[in-house]
């Protein structure tokens, strides 16, 4: 028997749950191995005192009021707030886009091509979102199904807002407000993905 095998058996031996044959093999090894003798003695001498340790220890003060205060603060800005933010985003996008297109200055529309304006705004965001989506995919199984549903639903909402802003900017590439609107959509998408990835890693 190697020391590694012996070490794997020590806890069961001390607990008295090791099969007789394995127990004999361990005893034979320990009889000729000083290191494993020490480990067996340490495990044996600590088992009782560890079992006697209290499982509960009350904190010196009452922590509940502070925890309670943080709950009220924390509960609201969860997924519900993100969902509301996403819905608000698409609603604002629709209204603001319509207004902005309505007062579009035709002379500025030719300053840059629509595609170039979109590329300029989206540079970096798309890659960042792809990386986060890949990370989220890896941690997906650790998230509850309803959490995934909420994330995906909100990503859809944001994607619609982004698509609408993108289409508007392509029509009116010099419009700074549309650029800001498109950038806001991407920032929301990245923030949502970052939060989802963080959640999947913490669980």
């Amino acid at each position, binding site marked *: 028997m190697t020391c590694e095998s012996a*070490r*794997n058996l020590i806890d069961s031996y001390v607990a008295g749950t090791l099969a007789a044959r394995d127990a004999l093999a361990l005893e034979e090894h320990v009889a000729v191995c000083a290191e494993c003798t*020490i*480990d067996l*003695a*340490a*495990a044996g*001498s*600590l088992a009782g*005192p*560890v079992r006697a*340790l*209290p*499982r*509960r*220890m*009350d*904190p*010196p*003060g009452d*922590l*509940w009021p*502070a*925890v*309670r205060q*943080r*709950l*009220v603060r*924390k*509960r609201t800005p*969860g997924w519900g707030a993100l969902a509301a933010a996403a819905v608000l985003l698409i609603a604002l996008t629709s209204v603001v886009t319509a207004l902005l297109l309505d007062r579009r200055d035709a002379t500025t529309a030719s300053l840059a091509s629509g595609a170039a304006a979109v590329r300029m705004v989206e540079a970096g965001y798309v890659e960042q979102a792809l990386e986060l989506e890949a990370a989220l995919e890896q941690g997906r199984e650790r*998230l*509850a*199904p*309803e*959490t995934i*549903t909420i994330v995906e639903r909100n990503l859809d909402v944001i994607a619609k807002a982004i698509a609408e802003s993108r289409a508007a900017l392509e029509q009116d590439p010099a419009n700074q407000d549309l650029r800001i609107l498109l950038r806001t959509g991407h920032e929301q998408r990245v923030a949502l993905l970052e939060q989802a990835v963080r*959640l999947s890693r*913490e*669980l």
Partner: protein
Amino acid sequence: MGVHEIASGMNADPGLLAAQAGDPDAFGTLYHAHVGRIFALCLRLAGDSRRAEELTQDVFVRAWERLSSFRGESAFTTWLHRLAVNVVLTDRRTAWRRSRRFELTDDPAAFERGVDRSEGVELDLEAAISRLPEGARTVFVLHDVEGFTHDEIADMARIAAGTSRAQLFRARRLLRGWLER
């Protein structure tokens, strides 16, 4: 899936259901039922009472945020304990990134470095555990006190299972040496 659907497949504790539905007072009942065990875990892992109080608060705030993900596949106590370990170890990793000091190591000799041995002072087990180097203390508390397996510890602490075993045996040797002095 709604809260009630989630809970329908488990031992639907009405207090737990109410807490999942967002009732802070129902969550308070859960808090008071479990705070003793969570504080004990945090205290033993952190080795410092004040930090343990902060971590205990963080654990329950995190539990509140994650409560909807509890699906009753394990006991609530098991779920909460695992979450508590993750909160403590995540906090430690964050602190490490700030301080660049961390003692979860594959080098067993490192377990003894930086330990205040306080020659001649007889220690009880609790005090001796608090004096263990961080890595050895973590594994000892999680394995011997809390009953996690080496594979579970390896997963949570992001170390190899072999490292977890090595740290455990080193921790036991240190503790035995101190307690028998």
